[in-house]
């Protein structure tokens, strides 16, 4: 059994890895009436036409097929691997969902015809030369998108290609060695975010050099609960692209906060649960992009916040006096 699924999996894996598409055997476009209906008649219509509608599905006409079955669409043009009419028939025959549920299944050649037909866009009728030309233009547009439904909701997937410099690569390796979680930012694959909380770090072994090497790409850093203090803060001043800095429950003090003025892009500053007071806040005077600051469980007072808000009128301050 295992072996069978192995044999089944490998070809499809290779096909998709190579981005392989298009019909294997026919240069000519397949159509439902000529190529697919005969197969369905022999293998499927006993249970999926006017007499019986197993799974609330009929497979005898275009309209019925496009209507789908009890669990929705069964045919997605250009996407055989999304189309249940193909998927279920391509399962290994011992799978409980295999179609036909009884009787002889599709031969490998029939399966391939069905796959190619869907891959080519699931044409139902033979077309004239003109409409064929139009349709093929249509097809290239649609193939740029993974499925028709995706076109509907306008989700575009952008393949961002970017090249890491050798020293950036090295820095990432070093950080990972230390137990730092290195990841891409969701909205921009060429930018990075770090979680340092689970690396055993303090001011003495703070990976300043690695961070600086990555400075052009570092957007978010999470230091939450690390026993790091002002010395480490001082070494962040070169991270000029940083927009998100989480210093929750670290050992930083008022003294260190002045260093943050060197981070022109900073939008989010989390000081929750630190020993920061009004004196520290008074030092923040150059953060033009700052949008949110978190000050609950610190020594900050209402007075200090009032002054901060005078300097940053649009700042969202999260603070509950204890």
């Amino acid at each position: 059994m295992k072996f069978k699924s192995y044999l089944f999996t490998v070809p499809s894996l290779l096909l998709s890895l190579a981005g392989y598409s298009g019909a294997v055997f026919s240069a000519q476009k397949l159509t439902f009436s000529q190529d697919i209906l005969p197969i369905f008649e022999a293998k499927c219509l006993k249970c999926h036409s006017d007499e019986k509608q197993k799974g609330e599905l009929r497979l005898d006409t275009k309209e019925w097929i496009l209507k789908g079955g009890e669990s929705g669409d069964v045919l997605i043009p250009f996407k055989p691997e999304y189309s249940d009419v193909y998927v279920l028939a391509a399962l290994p025959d011992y799978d409980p969902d295999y179609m036909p549920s009884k009787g002889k299944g599709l031969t490998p050649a029939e399966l391939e015809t069905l796959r190619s037909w869907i891959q080519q866009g699931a044409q139902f009728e033979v077309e004239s030369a003109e409409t064929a030309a139009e349709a093929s233009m249509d097809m290239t547009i649609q193939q740029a998108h993974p499925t028709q439904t995706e076109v509907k909701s306008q989700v575009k997937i952008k393949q961002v290609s970017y090249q890491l410099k050798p020293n950036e690569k090295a820095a990432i390796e070093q950080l990972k060695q230390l137990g730092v979680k290195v990841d891409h930012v969701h909205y921009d694959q060429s930018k990075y975010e770090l979680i340092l909380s689970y690396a055993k770090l303090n001011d003495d072994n703070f990976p300043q050099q690695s961070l600086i090497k990555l400075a052009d790409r570092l957007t978010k850093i999470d230091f939450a609960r690390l026993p790091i203090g002002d010395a480490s803060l001082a070494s962040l001043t070169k991270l000029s692209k940083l927009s998100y800095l989480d210093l929750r429950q670290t050992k930083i003090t008022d003294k260190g906060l002045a260093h943050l003025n060197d981070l022109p892009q900073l939008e989010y500053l989390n000081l929750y649960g630190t020993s920061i007071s009004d004196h520290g806040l008074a030092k923040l005077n150059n953060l033009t992009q700052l949008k949110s600051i978190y000050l609950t469980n610190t020594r900050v007072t209402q007075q200090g916040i009032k002054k901060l808000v005078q300097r940053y009128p649009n700042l969202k301050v999260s603070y509950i006096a204890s």
Partner: protein
Amino acid sequence: MKNLLKQASELDRRQFILNTAKSLLGVSCASSLLAKPSFAQSTSSIYSGPQAKNVIYLYMSGGMSHLDTFDLKQGRPEQGPVKGIKTNVVGTRLSENLPQLAKHMNKMAVINSMFSNQGAHEEGRYFMHSSYTKRGTIQHPGLGSWLMKYDGNHNPNLPGVVHIGSVNPGSTQGFLEQKYAPLLIGDPEAGLQHSKIHKLFTEKEFANTQSLRQKLDQAFSAKYQQRKVSSYSEAYDDALRLMKSDDLDAFKVESEAQSTRDAYGKNSFGQGCLLARRLIERDVRFVEVTLGGWDTHTNNFERVAENSRILDQAMAALLGDLEQRGMLEETLVVLTTEFGRTPKINQNEGRDHNPTAFSSVLVGGGIQGGRFYGKSDEIGKSVADKRVTVPDFNATIAYALGLPIYDTIYSPTGRPFHIADKGQPILELFS
């Protein structure tokens, strides 16, 4: 092809791809992970677009009445006795059953056009959690396990997926590897206090779930034969790491101030939400907390009010806490259920199952709050505008997490799957 592979080696998911290649016999992945696709965004602020790292998933088991909570039909006889109250967003109303949550409306996106085609509990839960209908013998993975599969742990000392209360149908690791299984905490107040003692493996667990206790049990009993089965020793390593870890403290809700514990509510859902906050603070990726009792075929109005009190207090405390800690930017809070309840009030003052229109809520993780999305018809029976199917809803969660929703993953039988089936994310909620 070579280029793609070279790029892949820079990616954090490298290990995953290697594992995948090695496990052709198991779950194989012919995905575009090789060059991780990212979604095009016009701006690059951390305040727009998907931002979620972690998820707190509040599951209302039994079918939460949308009409008596988030989707009011005031002035209609179908509404029954429930009144609306103002929220902190001008011009919007929620049910009087949700007075605390009404103060957090500015953070919430309330979807009132949810649609499911599954009208029975078990099937509905399965569909909601896995995006697939129950069919044949295949088990589909839940979102937490998908997240672990693609993105892994952030905190190496704690499990990545934790379920508090119960493990719902469709929320297990499904056909993915055992190591992505959720850990079940039956009683939030008991936490993991027994993890140092290996005798306490008496609780009967959900059949398909590898709870940590079971892992420990296996680990200890298999101590001398662990080399035989490699996954046993993996479990053993995990268990040891967890037992030594300071992060175990995360499980101790009792170390919170009494005032905080009271704020969440003195009941297991409330304490479960508090535990969820503590776990997410330590970068557990996905925590699900279940509140049962929503199957209100009889006495709907009293029972919904009672249940809402528990939900309202706990979720409001949770949102407030996450906000103060600066965690709402990266934590997606989900509130959902298997279906809503009928507009028609039956002879037992009850409401029956209504999968064709119901409500769910999303907060944080890049979701822009203070709004309603979609509409049900004038009595709340069917969707009238902007239908959100269950797969669409899950695709939205996956999109918030930056997961590759169009990647194809093959089950051990060679069948292709997607994280949220054919669901399409609601991009509008992120801007």
